């Protein structure tokens, strides 16, 4: 039984929640909000294509930053800031 708990002990680490679910959610919200703030270009398609292409890159940058940083509080603040900023852009896109 103890073995099972040992396998799941990563759930107790704040860094797991920071680099795992939090990074994924923020990356998704940034990708969706990019539709509104990324310049559409002459073809009116850049704001649709570029977020899709950049999603793995955004995720990878945020993941490696949050995984390797020694300043976890700072990382939480940065992710929180990105989330609030991009959520506001999305809300404005839907109801603005």
């Amino acid at each position, binding site marked *: 039984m103890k073995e099972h708990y040992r396998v799941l002990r990563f759930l107790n680490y704040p860094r797991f929640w920071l680099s795992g679910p939090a990074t994924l959610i923020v990356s998704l919200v940034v990708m969706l909000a990019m*539709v509104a703030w990324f310049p559409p270009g002459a*073809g*009116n*398609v*850049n704001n649709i294509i570029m977020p899709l292409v950049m*999603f793995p890159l955004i995720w990878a940058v945020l993941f490696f930053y949050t995984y390797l940083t020694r300043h976890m509080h700072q990382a939480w603040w940065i992710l929180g800031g990105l989330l609030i900023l991009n959520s506001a852009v999305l809300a404005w896109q839907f109801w603005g």
Partner: protein
Amino acid sequence: MSNVTESQPRSKAKALLNLHSWSGIALGMLLYAVIFTGTVAVVSDEVGEWSNSNQHQQLLATQNVDEVLSQLAAQTNSDYLEEISAYEDHRQNLVFFFHTHRQNPDGVMDEYGVQYKVNANGNIVQQQEGFGSDIYAQDDSYALSRFLVSIHTELHLPAPWGLILTGMLGLAMLIAAVSGFMMHRHLFTDLFTIRKQRDGKSLKRDSHTVAGTWSIPFAILLAFTGSFFSFATAFGLPAMAIVAFGGDQEAMMHTLVGEQQHKSKAPQPSASVNTMLSDAVSRQSAVPTFIAISHWGTESASMMAFFMPSDGEVGFAQLVYNATNGDFVEFKPQVGTVPSTGSVIMSLIYPVHFGTFAGFMSKIIWISLGVASCYVTVTGLQLYAFRNEKQASGWRWFSRLCVWGFCGLPLCSLSSALAFFVSGALVANQSVWTPLAFVLAAAMVSILALTVKSIVRLQNLLLASNGLLCLLLPVIRYLTSEFGWLQAIEQGNVSLMFIDAVLLLCSGWCFHRIYVSSEAKQSNTNDADAIVHDESLNDTAGVAK
């Protein structure tokens, strides 16, 4: 202070090593499945040609497409004239799909209409009505290549879960590759250094490092483009439709495809397709892979000819014609109506992911790097199994799992190819038997993995089965098609000879591995005998004293 600065790089290196190990261990086996089938998917067109012992006859350029199209259009429901696609299949037929667009039972926008297969004599050999996705899924000529590609793209899991999983595997590969790169202290040295063990064999960790270092740029590129494909298809595009177009997927597709949503349906005779085709052929010095004609017989009629990358070009080419008078209109961007950064990136991603940007040569390079990536995954997991096995015998199941996956997957894929040929010869449904054989072979491999006690024997058994099938498949292909190498050489059928040669090479490699394994076992037995002999001599000497 100095202690703190010294401990920082060490802890970062340890964190990267943990990340590298766990990203590989947690998803390594599935990652191997995606990389292995991805390596095969690079030559999916060639596998399609090989499995049908066929070579493209460029029927779009040599047949009277206009006449056939007019005859078929006259007997088709006018609703389906909204769009007509035409291409050559792997059995020397021209395939015409007259269709409109509507939601399929899964709620996804799909093509719906009538598909005609017309042979070189102009006779209809097959006619089917339904959704495009269903018709394609039942097309026997693509049964083998389609099945292998589908494992790569979605691991045969229901949509969208398969795509989401392969997307996550892409991200895991990205983590493993980037952390592997960041861990290197001596990148240049690591490209070439393989140290020897005491017994003269290469050090396993070095083999893993060398293969991994060479394939890092390739792994990062493929992981990035692969996860883009998976996530964009699974949820990216629908999500974008919600945000940018209020959920109207059709409006988004019209923006991306670059078509007006409402077109005039006033009747007007269309220009000759043959004339437009010959103009496209002369402009690109190649035959289009397929053509798509919109609103045939109306004043909005247009034709688009799609070309795979030609010599010196990296991306696809799409030529648009005004089908009312046959005039060339433009080289259409991949996405939208005018050139854009998004369109350029989209036109590069597919050739980069599948290695189609420089013809057959780039495909061979991509296959080689794919094999290297498979080797990195295999040796990575083997290293982990080996280390843990030394510490605790309870970890032997992990070594068994590695053998099951690494040798089992190629065997199952080869079995599906065998079933493709046999079911074809027996006039059975190849689209059913090809995946079924894979499942049956997987069950057999699993039973063997559970029952054969010795891991070495299990590995040799699976290697022998792989080697045998690799040897048999070219023979069975020849017997079922009566199309041999002499004809292939005469017709310049490189695909067929390439796949046959690769299979024979793989067969030789499998039997070589078995030979090396038996030699190693023999040498170990001799060493053990020598030790026992020395010990008995010492004992005898002791007794004599």
